[in-house]
């Protein structure tokens, strides 16, 4: 099967000050199959957010190529990248990023509106997603009137509202308590079962245990990968969490 997303020898240097480039990614290569569910783990500052940004066309790598669905993203003009992000890619940012002038519902509807979908249709989809994440009663509120966890659930609804091919989540459950995190993950699992490819950054082994592959990152590079056997009665989520907890220290995390 041809991969949905391929990164080849990605490198990214941030030019914070002209004289001192900060190397955030070094020689990262990976391939993600359609329908896959991948998590990225690693210490803070190791380049996870940078990698997601480069893979999703939010940022461009300093060198290397990203091919998404047969199309090379690197070198595309921002206009084309924006259209791809809008219609084919969902993104849950590390920090809640909403338009303060809009209600929660309108924030969720926004990508559909920007893509020119019929409003009634998008609103219906947004309400369905909101109900699935347990924020159906809050959608008419202003974003200043809901908690951080509720915002993050809305962010997931927004990421899914245009039925993206792939959803990137940058620590989507980082701000959530256990139940809320479980609901959010359930929603992403549903999207994954419906065919969406999922790529998450997380520090939580419970989140990683629900994926199929775990990539370990350190210092801007992918240093190891763990693939899970399919879930079975003998090897459930609990067993996966134990596996991960012993695997991570072994690779240095």
């Amino acid at each position: 099967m041809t991969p949905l997303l391929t990164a080849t020898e990605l490198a990214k240097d941030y030019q914070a000050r002209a004289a001192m480039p900060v190397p955030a990614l070094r020689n990262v290569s990976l391939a993600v199959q359609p329908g896959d569910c991948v998590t990225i783990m690693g210490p803070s500052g190791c380049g996870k957010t940078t990698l997601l940004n480069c893979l999703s066309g939010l940022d461009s790598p300093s060198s290397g190529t990203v091919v998404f669905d047969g199309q090379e993203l690197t070198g595309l003009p921002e206009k084309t990248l924006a259209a791809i992000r809008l219609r084919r890619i969902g993104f849950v940012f590390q920090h809640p990023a909403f338009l303060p002038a809009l209600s929660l519902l309108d924030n969720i509807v926004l990508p559909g509106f920007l893509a020119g979908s019929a409003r009634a249709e998008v609103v219906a989809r947004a309400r369905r997603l909101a109900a699935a994440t347990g924020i159906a009663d809050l959608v008419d509120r202003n974003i200043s009137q809901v908690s951080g966890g509720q915002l993050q659930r809305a962010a997931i609804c927004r990421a899914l509202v245009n039925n993206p091919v792939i959803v990137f989540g940058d620590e989507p459950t980082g701000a959530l308590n256990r139940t809320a995190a479980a609901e959010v993950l359930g929603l992403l699992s549903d999207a994954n079962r419906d065919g969406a490819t999922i790529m998450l950054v997380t520090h939580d082994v419970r989140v990683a245990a629900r994926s199929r592959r775990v990539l370990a990152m350190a210092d801007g590079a992918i240093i190891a990968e763990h693939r899970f056997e399919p879930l079975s009665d003998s090897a459930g989520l609990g067993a996966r969490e134990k596996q991960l907890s012993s695997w991570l220290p072994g690779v240095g995390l």
Partner: protein
Amino acid sequence: MALSPGDTLKLQDGSGWQSVRLTGVYQDITNGGRTAKAAGGLSCGNPIWVTVNLDAAPGGAPEQIIADFKTAFEGLRAYSMSDYSAQTLGPTLASLGVAVRASLIVSTVVVALIAALFTGVLLTRDAGPNAVLRALGAPGALVRNQYLVRLLALLSAGVVIGAVLAGTAGEAVTGALMSILGAPRISFCANPLISYLACPAALILAVAAATAAAGQGGAKPRAHTALRTD
């Protein structure tokens, strides 16, 4: 001069006192005051000059009439109205024209500067929401055009209010200001093409260009950078 048209004025000439009826009071910038004019009546035998105003019949060719008069009467000075006013008020008219053009240019430049500054302030204020819009994949033009729409709406309101004020209170206000220069009664002869088309068009172009230029810079930073708070 507490006289108005219709009043009688006693004037002394070579043959004694005469009554004349005023036909008009004119402001006379060239003398920094006013001149009264009377029609006919004065038998002063030898006036310095007499001014006769003639209207050409519709379709008449003024240049031809002037030429005819010049050949028919020796010593007659005949001018077209525009030459006449240029001769009597020439420098005043010219400097008034310069002032009008200068104020047009200055106000257009100031409006453009204000629009650019205003857009800059709005872009700074909206950096967060704009980064969200761009990260989600909103077209850059949509992000930029918000400001174009807002500023042009503001400008249109300003132009309409300005035109109405100029049309109502404008003459009185300008007259009050110009009375310092000895021209207390100014009446506007607005060329509608210039006042209601060319000037607003110049302002709209200036604001649109300034807003677009200012918005260009503001839309540059990559979408994700403003999303970071850590």
